[in-house]
């Protein structure tokens, strides 16, 4: 056992894990965290807490994660290398593990020009792979980056990272995953999936390299609220591919929201059958209330208790 977190127990038992995602408020209003947490409690094994997503200033990921712990929900703290240099990162990990956070997602993070602090200086002291390596060194060797400094105390953390099978160059994506595995990642959450054919191709390449035994892969899904949202994501968010027929299906549907949920559930069922997919990561940003309905319709309930 690496960290003994609920997510880790479920995955190591070979059960199908379900994780959700929660965006902290653009301020310090704890009730927002509470409201979203209540919507997810019991329906997911762990809840991702984003770290200033799309470079928009929000409550910090550590603070929100520790609030979730107090509310009895297991968080997955996301950490980007955009805002912190290696000193801040390692000290934040000390703090996080001290507060009982047991899961972590290492991300490079969106470029600051997307957010609301365009003039800021981006750091990028490490990149996501170097961050994974750094956390693994702290956990397994008990030393800081560079290897000499002994850590007072023990770092127990379940390391995760993101992967986007739909970005280019496609053949390279598996190589990048292999690098992350070698760097010591434990679980992977992919970008939201709509182009099922390409995802299956990617999974085949993952299996060819035997990576699906070395790391737990959670497939990311995002229910589409409306045709407009579908078209916006397809055009503006780079690295997301939404096939035409899916956009048409949502646009032509009488009730697009319901159609979106139905599509999401179908995707989950289809993802279950793919060998090597050990779970699903439902990113229903600003639509957390639908997670209960999705998990219910996809037959993922009740969530097992990770004793």
């Amino acid at each position, binding site marked *: 056992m690496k960290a003994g977190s609920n997510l880790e127990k479920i995955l190591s038992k070979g059960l199908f894990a379900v994780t959700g995602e929660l965006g902290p408020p653009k301020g310090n209003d704890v009730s927002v965290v509470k409201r979203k947490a209540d919507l997810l409690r019991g329906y997911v094994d762990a809840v991702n807490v984003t770290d200033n997503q799309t470079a928009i200033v929000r409550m910090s990921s550590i603070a929100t994660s520790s609030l979730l712990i107090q509310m009895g929900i297991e968080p997955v703290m996301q950490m980007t290398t955009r805002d912190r240099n290696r000193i801040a990162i390692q000290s934040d990990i000390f703090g996080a593990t001290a507060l009982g956070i047991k899961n972590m997602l290492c991300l490079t993070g969106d470029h600051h020009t997307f957010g609301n602090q365009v003039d800021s200086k981006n750091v990028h002291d490490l990149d996501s792979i170097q961050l994974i390596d750094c956390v693994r060194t702290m956990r397994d060797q008990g030393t800081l980056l560079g290897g000499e400094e002994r850590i007072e105390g023990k770092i127990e953390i379940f390391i995760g990272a993101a992967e986007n099978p739909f970005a280019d160059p496609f053949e390279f994506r598996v190589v990048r995953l292999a*690098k992350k595995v070698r760097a010591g990642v434990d679980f992977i959450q992919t970008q939201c999936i709509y182009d099922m054919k390409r995802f299956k191709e990617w999974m085949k390449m993952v299996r060819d390299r035997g990576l699906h035994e070395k790391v737990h892969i959670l497939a990311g899904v995002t229910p589409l609220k409306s045709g407009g949202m579908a078209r916006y994501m397809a055009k503006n968010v780079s690295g997301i591919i939404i096939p035409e027929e899916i956009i048409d299906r949502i646009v032509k549907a009488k009730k697009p929201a319901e159609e979106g949920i139905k599509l999401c559930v179908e995707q989950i069922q289809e993802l279950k059958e793919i060998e090597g997919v050990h779970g699903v990561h439902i990113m229903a940003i600003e639509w957390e209330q639908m997670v209960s309905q999705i998990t219910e319709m996809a037959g993922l309930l009740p969530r097992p208790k990770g004793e």
Partner: protein
Amino acid sequence: MIKAEQKPMEEILRSIDPYKKILLSGCGACVTVCHAGGEKEVLLLASALRMARKKIGKPLEILEATPSRQCEPEYAQELSELSEKVEAILSLACGVGVQTLVRFFPKMPVLPGVNTTFLGETLSHGIWEERCQACGNCILEKTGGICPISRCAKQLLNGPCGGSSKGKCEIKKEADCAWQLIYDRLSSLGQLYKLEEIIPAKRWGIESRDSGLRRIIREDLKI
């Protein structure tokens, strides 16, 4: 070569406002090559400044000079006897030139006329693109000769981020994703194995500017 662009005119006018007689000095090297501070631009700017000041009734007298370079002490000293006649020096050289003059004219205000922008390559006449950040420890060998630190928006050292699509960077649609170029370059050289190896975290604090003021000393050359 160092690439630079002339400062907006309002800024220059504001910076030389208190002075009645200035020395406008160009530089015959990098800023000449990128048409920002050569003799042609010196004469053009001089004429424009005189006219601008004449229009607001504060005539400005300008002496013009363009030494071959401004980043060598001797060339900078070429301007010394001209500097006695003026109240300030407006230098169209890059940041290096301006600060070399400051060393030799301690009591003379030296004002920059151009914005030094980057070390770059000429794509075609009149179009230049950034190529090097002078980060102190070149990794071009590992990336097939294309530098991710100067050409990738997030300075990634291990492969393209999730936002690279159709070979273009998500931040600037017209810019190529550096790692896509690296991937294509290495595959054409048949060295894709180089992408498998993890490039460890860069020692920014020792090699790059983060280590504070950097100095190269060649004992063999010292006089």
